[in-house]
């Protein structure tokens, strides 16, 4: 059981981290590389480990934000009583779920970009996720206000 888990972990690592195994995993690797870029450990030198750990925690914090968005979206679409307006709950909930799904993968891209910059001794790239999340949540809040107002009038 444990041996099987270790083998699976090594295979996964071979696909994404380009560890030599003698097999070509381009079909799986290509989409990930297209979205995330080259694996960070392929460039530069390992920075101060405290910076790497901080970058990893930032990724995990974004991942929890994604989960919170998905949870709230699901709660709105499935647990709120329906509004008088058709599709009212979906207008509010679905954009939040979609944003959560996007944030989940975009945070991996940001982690990789930050890690590459640190390994190359370059300034950290400008983070775009905070602006995107703020704008989408602001728009959803306005839509929710309109739906609630129309529904109760």
């Amino acid at each position, binding site marked *: 059981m444990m041996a099987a888990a270790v083998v699976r*972990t090594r295979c*996964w*690592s071979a*696909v*994404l*981290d380009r560890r030599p195994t003698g097999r070509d995993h381009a079909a799986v690797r290509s989409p*990930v590389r297209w979205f*995330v870029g080259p*694996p*960070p*450990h392929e460039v530069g*030198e*390992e920075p*101060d*480990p*405290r910076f*790497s*750990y*901080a970058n*990893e*925690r930032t*990724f*995990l*914090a974004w*991942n*929890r934000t*994604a*989960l*919170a968005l*998905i*949870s709230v*979206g*699901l*709660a*709105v*679409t*499935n*647990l*709120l*009583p329906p509004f008088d307006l058709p599709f009212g*709950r*979906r207008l509010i*909930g*679905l954009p939040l*779920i*979609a944003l*959560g*799904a*996007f944030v*989940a*993968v975009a*945070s*991996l891209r940001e*982690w*990789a970009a930050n*890690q590459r910059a640190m390994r190359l001794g370059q300034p950290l790239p400008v983070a775009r996720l905070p602006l995107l999340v703020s704008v989408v949540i602001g728009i959803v809040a306005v839509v929710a206000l309109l739906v609630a107002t129309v529904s109760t009038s």
Partner: protein
Amino acid sequence: MTAYRPHPGASVERTRLAWQRSGLSLVACGLLIARGVPVDGGVGGRPSLGLVVLLLGLGAWAVGLRQERVRAKRIGTPRDAAVLSDLAPVAIGTFLIGVAGFAVGLLFPS
């Protein structure tokens, strides 16, 4: 000659706690979906979907604990930091939960 590498200190522990919070978030998300919240005296939940998310949360928790142990042995070497394959499963798993949630919210709003 090996280059000097500062000891990561408490950042290892903070990172382990962050993994545990992420696991707990998934478990809480699963419980919410499985049991729902009381609405007009009734409870609207989706037990099967919630169970899947809950199991993913426990899996993420276990992965975080395992990685912390593996990395503890590598402290002071250039391989103690996370690589892409450590984090990609979490990101892809959360993305798939989002896609499943979108489909449920779009097609089966209760």
